[in-house]
């Protein structure tokens, strides 16, 4: 792939604006970008949603007619942008093969694929990319500051068939997590809402070894 001339980084007039490639004029997606500003500018990608984030847009219906188009765009993109995305609008029913091909070529070209299923969703993605430009990933990180009940519920509902009502039953009957772990099958079976399968699952979770020792 010939390294194309890297276009100068276009700085938006307002920090809250998405820069849109003029070739996207008339794209219905533009109507669906909300809550962030838009301005046109000469960029290699279709949408510049962050200082180092470029997004190419591809409608699969268009791709079906012009399969070469996206490759030329990717080539033009060269090595610009640290975060490179291909936003695919899945608007045909025979999407399996095109998505497979695109997956492969994007992997080679260091592009991450995002598939959207409507114009609204495309717009949503674009605006969220802009909004989250400098957001720390705390939201999707593992959290610690939850209260006791939430953690207990979260932990125990990992066991198949155990629901939040059961967690409440267990807590109120046995008191602590450690006591729950000591509960015998007979005790469990006598709790309201506990059938054989559930009791067995709980038994297995607490009393079966983590690993078999070879």
């Amino acid at each position: 792939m010939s390294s194309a001339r890297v276009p100068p980084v276009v700085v938006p007039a307002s920090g809250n604006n998405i820069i849109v490639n003029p070739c996207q004029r008339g794209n219905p997606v533009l109507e669906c970008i909300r809550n962030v500003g838009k301005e046109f500018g000469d960029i290699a990608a279709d949408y510049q949603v962050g200082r180092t984030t470029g997004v190419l847009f591809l409608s699969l219906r268009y791709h079906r007619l012009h399969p070469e188009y996206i490759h030329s765009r990717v080539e033009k993109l060269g090595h610009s942008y640290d975060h490179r995305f291909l936003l695919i609008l899945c608007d045909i029913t025979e999407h399996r093969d095109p998505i497979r091909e695109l997956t492969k070529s994007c992997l080679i070209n260091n592009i991450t694929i995002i598939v959207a299923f409507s114009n609204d969703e495309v717009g949503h993605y674009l605006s969220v990319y802009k909004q989250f430009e400098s957001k720390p990933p705390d939201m999707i990180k593992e959290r610690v500051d939850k209260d006791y009940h939430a953690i207990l519920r979260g932990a125990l509902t990992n066991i198949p068939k155990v629901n939040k009502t059961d967690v409440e039953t267990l807590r109120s009957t046995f008191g602590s997590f450690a006591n729950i772990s000591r509960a015998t099958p007979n005790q469990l079976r006598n709790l309201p809402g506990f059938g054989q399968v559930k009791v067995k699952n709980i038994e297995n979770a607490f009393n079966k070894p983590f690993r078999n020792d070879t």
Partner: protein
Amino acid sequence: MSTLLPFHKSILEEIHDPATSDLLILARGLGLRRIICTLMKIYDSNKNLILLVNATQEEESAIGEELGIMGCRRPGLRVIGYETSSKDRQNLYKQGGLMSVTSRILVVDMLQNDIPVHLITGMLILHAERVTPTVIEAFIVRLFREKNRDGFVKAFTDQPEHITSGMSPLKNVMKELQLRRAHLYPRFHEHINKTLERRRADVVELSQPLSQSMSEIHHAIIQCISTTLAELKRSNKELELDDFNVENTYFRSFEGIVRSRLSPVWHKVGPKTKQLINDLNVLRQLLFYLLSYDALSFHAYLETIIESNTISTRTGGPKVHQSPWLLTDAANIIFEVAKRRCFIISSIPKETAVTHQPMEVDDQDAWDLLDELEQPGTNNQGKRKLHERPAWLPKNIQPVLEEQPKWDLLSEILLEIESEIIHLSSNKNTSQRGTDTVLIMTSSTRSCDLIQDFLDTMDPDAESGWKGRVMMRRRLKGYLGWRGRLNPNDNNNFAPTNQAGSAGMTSRKGKEREDNLSEALKKKDREKMEKSASRRRTRGGAPSTGGGRSATSDKASPEVIDVDKPDDMTLWSKDDPDLAATLMNASNDFALDLLTQDEFESSYGLLPPEQTIVIRACSDDTDDRMLAEIQPRFIVMFEPSVEFIRRVEVYRSSYPGMAVRVYHMVYADSCEEHRYLAAIRKEKESFERLVKERGSMLLTLEERRKPGGGGEGENVIRTISTRLAGGRRELTTEPPKIIVDMREFRSALPSLLHAAQLLVVPATLTVGDYILTPDICVERKSLSDLVSSFNSGRLYTQCEFMSVHYKHPVLLIEFEEDKSFSLETISELKNYAKPTQKYPNKPSRPSTFNSLSSEPPSSVTTIQSKLVLLTLSFPRLRTIWSQSPYATAEIFKDLKSNQPEPDPIKAITIGADGDDPNDVGKGFNTVAEELVRALPGIGSGGLASSSGIVNTVMRRCKNVRELCELKEDEVKELVGVGPGKVLYEFLHKGE
């Protein structure tokens, strides 16, 4: 060993031939296990390697036992689970014989060539009804058939109802298991009919009306169900939900129906719809519990439901999705009436001065009057005791303690049986087979325990509705203790002024309550011990409401010992060691218990065990053996069960000359009755469909696959394409290889990868799920996984790991086959996402959010925005969007072309700090692992810690329980001081 009936023999003749492969569908309760065990006995030999696949743990042990009884003892059936090490497994396979293997283990062993596939004589596959193209059993058969054309596959099922969905369900099952012959044996099969019809069981059907309050609750629950259904229909107008009616909701399968109907849009249905479906499930259970639980447990369960639905109000945030039915009037009726069945709370304690005065004065008088009318001679002493008010009871509570109507009925039946037994045994010349043991069958072990408890403490002198008063009292005591702990903040139900006299029952101090409860438990245990130790039982010949009959039985009872027939005695002593052992086992496992009545014990002494009462829960085919062992002549079915009636039919036919009487108890006009009738109908219909389909079925011939993943032609093409790519690698003929994490064998993808001519290498991976090339590492997330692992934050950690160790970390988002390919779309989101100010930390935009309104206000909640954040956080992370596992297999194949092969040893060592690289084949307890991960102080660390700590914990402790037993210092040593403290406090909070 159970005898084989003529129809069993003819089925065996049909299917025993090791040269053919068959599918056997038998109606439930007709002894499928008997057939399987006989087959296994036929095949048992060291020269054969017979695998039993897809058996549950219980089935494995039960089949093993049965085979032992039948004489296959050395070595009998050996069970191979994940606890068996791979070396041991290899040795076992080499020895041959009968083996039951967990499916996941078997697949891995087949792929790693740990099992000599070509030497397998045959496989017996249970639960054939669950086989679909994507299940692991289909994968097993495919792997098996690849290398072994001669071995047999015999598949079994006794659940024809499951093989009814789709166009040609039977054909699909047969295709996946590569079978050509199907044998259908419904109950209405001519041969079966002829065998069983010859001796019909003597069935007494008793239909017990519900009590007033129960039918009120029953009615209210039905009302809630129909409201919920209506709500469900209203919120999903576009779907055809016509067959969502109240009758269908009685069945557990209803949830399946709803899910299959909604599955094309399942990811799109809002949390509200999901909530509604859950609610239906809860309501269905309530219906069932209403009939089987005692009043107190039922009320307690309802309280737990309310509690768990209001829990978040205490922690600050409002409950987002309240179950709609909880807010209806009908729900109120349920809660109120359920409470009234247990006790009445009066706001002002009436008789504060006199504690020992009977509370229900009016009742007492009325009862006395009744007593006098019915039986003038009864001593009122015992009854007075019942009506007396115990000291521990808070004064504002008046116990009602309604008893289940069936309990009364049961005690009457037992009386009748007793007089019958006496009548028969005095009539010496009729030689009777079987024992006088009375067998009571219940639907669940829980109600089994309950009835046992009831019979233990039953007061046969009491009026109807008061017989289990002692037990109900004890339960009330336990309940009050429990109630205090359910919600410590909310004690308004029990007036605190009464605490002084009530032995700390309602006191807020947890410790005292604990003591009380454990005291109650201890007492119960002690009683149980005593009872099973004494092994004594008297004939309950005391006069009761029974009038004339009871008088005779009273007179007869002293003679009981003398009347014991000698032949019964010899029969007993002959089988003594065996039978006694089983009975003892049963008393441990299945609550066998003997009735006692203190005042009669001394005069009666030990009674032979055949005059006892055995209470068991209906399970599976194990019941057949139990019947054969106990050989009861009187069977009481506390709850209706189609299966068990068939078992009794088979049992009766197996022992000609035995007069079996069955008492069949049903609540009239209840869901129980309806469910019973509908179950019979459903099974019949599904058999009819299957018979029809078999008649018109077209079976295709399968092409034969070459072993080793790829076919010949495939390899050639691959070789050429490598050359064309201009790579300097040597020509390779080995098929493309993918390393798959052991845990992934639960999903369908490995099977499909194999079907797509890829070589699947199982390994225990710490990082990633699939390794395609040395650079590409894939983490697979199904849609539901994606949501949950975003919420738990696990996905972030996993991506962190992959980014550290691999050049191309890939997130595979896999949608499900047959379901639409899309995430929740925005337009649908706005239908149910109401503008909540759940995330007040974004105050800059709320106005635009609400005014523009076509976007969800809290964009942070959508899965899309989480995905955005993830991709922004990991610039190197790539995504694969796959419509189905089938598409994934294609994409993987594509990505692998012209790429170097991954190295399994290296892949295993990556990220596994200090773990033995030769861990291949190690078993996992995934649930336990997830459980540990969710604990605070363990999963919450950063990249370096979280997985490391989990591994440390799992190395140090054998299981979760052991972790809980550690001292605080030990925990700190294990996971570090700070997290250790958090963890320890979490584990022991509330003690």
